[in-house]
């Protein structure tokens, strides 16, 4: 009883924050300049509402829920990948040469994920939809996790002054790394019951954590991406020039 109440509370909390953030982004000027976070939030809300409706109408074991669940999951991972690409673009705003390299890298990664996921066709060609979608969604999920970590390292490396982007990247990290770490714990631990309960709470908690970090970043932290440019002179050269004076 208590667990289901907490679970519903988490679910409704996520709905409210998602809807609030979408409204805030739609009303502010960030809609035209920052469409991808809005697209991701919309995907999260639409997927959650569709799943809740179909689950209520048809039940967990129904084919309808199965197809809706994996179709919306496909939508979510594609949105997440686009979101990470957008974050890379924003991080490389003043580094055109780096952005050309990163863009090509992201294209190659997407094509390779499609190819590797397509290997499942060789094992099973009767049920293409579920097996390909399982493979593709999970591979792209972990790709987003790795790319987001690389992006965080890149932000540290280029000494980015865009605080809002840093927080948005951290939020995505919470959502992707949290469930993966919990799932790894489930595999490692022998206390299966405790681990399963932890796993059922971890994913909604991580989503809630991401939404709270995003809410803080979007509402409280000023968007300085278009104003702040990385200094043309490297920091080390600047410091040595000061010493020479």
């Amino acid at each position, binding site marked *: 009883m208590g667990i289901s109440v907490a*679970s519903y509370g*988490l*679910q409704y909390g*996520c709905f409210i924050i998602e809807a609030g953030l979408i409204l805030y982004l739609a009303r502010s000027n960030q809609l035209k300049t920052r469409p991808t976070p809005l697209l991701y939030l919309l995907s*999260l809300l639409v*997927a*959650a509402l569709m*799943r*809740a409706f179909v*689950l209520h109408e048809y039940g*967990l*074991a*129904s*084919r309808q*829920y*199965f197809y809706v*669940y*994996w179709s*919306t*999951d496909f939508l*979510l*991972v594609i949105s*997440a990948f686009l979101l990470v690409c957008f974050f890379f673009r924003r991080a490389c705003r003043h580094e055109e040469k780096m952005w050309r*390299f990163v863009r*090509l*890298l992201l294209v*190659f*990664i997407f094509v*390779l*994920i499609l190819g*590797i996921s397509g290997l499942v066709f060789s094992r*099973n060609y*009767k*049920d293409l939809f*579920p097996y390909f979608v*399982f493979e593709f*969604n*999970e*591979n792209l*999920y*972990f*790709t987003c*996790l*790795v*790319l987001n970590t*690389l992006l965080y390292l890149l932000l540290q490396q280029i000494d980015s002054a865009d605080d809002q982007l840093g927080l948005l990247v951290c939020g995505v990290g919470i*959502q992707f790394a949290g*469930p*993966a770490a919990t*799932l*790894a714990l*489930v*595999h490692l631990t022998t206390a299966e019951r405790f681990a399963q309960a932890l796993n*059922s709470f971890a*994913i*909604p908690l991580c*989503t809630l954590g991401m939404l709270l970090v995003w809410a803080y970043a979007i509402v409280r932290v000023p968007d300085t991406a278009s104003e702040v440019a990385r200094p043309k002179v490297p920091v080390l050269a600047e410091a040595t020039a000061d010493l020479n004076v």
Partner: protein
Amino acid sequence: MKNLVLTFLLALLVVLTCVSIRRMVCGTSAGQKPALVAIGGDPVPPVPPPKK
């Protein structure tokens, strides 16, 4: 051309890293039941039996 090949190799390295992490975390190696990880906290539906 050299840059293109190097970028492709880097992309391959990233993708193989991701697939390896996925296999470690989800346990999809031979003989193990896959544990699904997905975005969103909704209950994961059971996999229907394959068509005969």
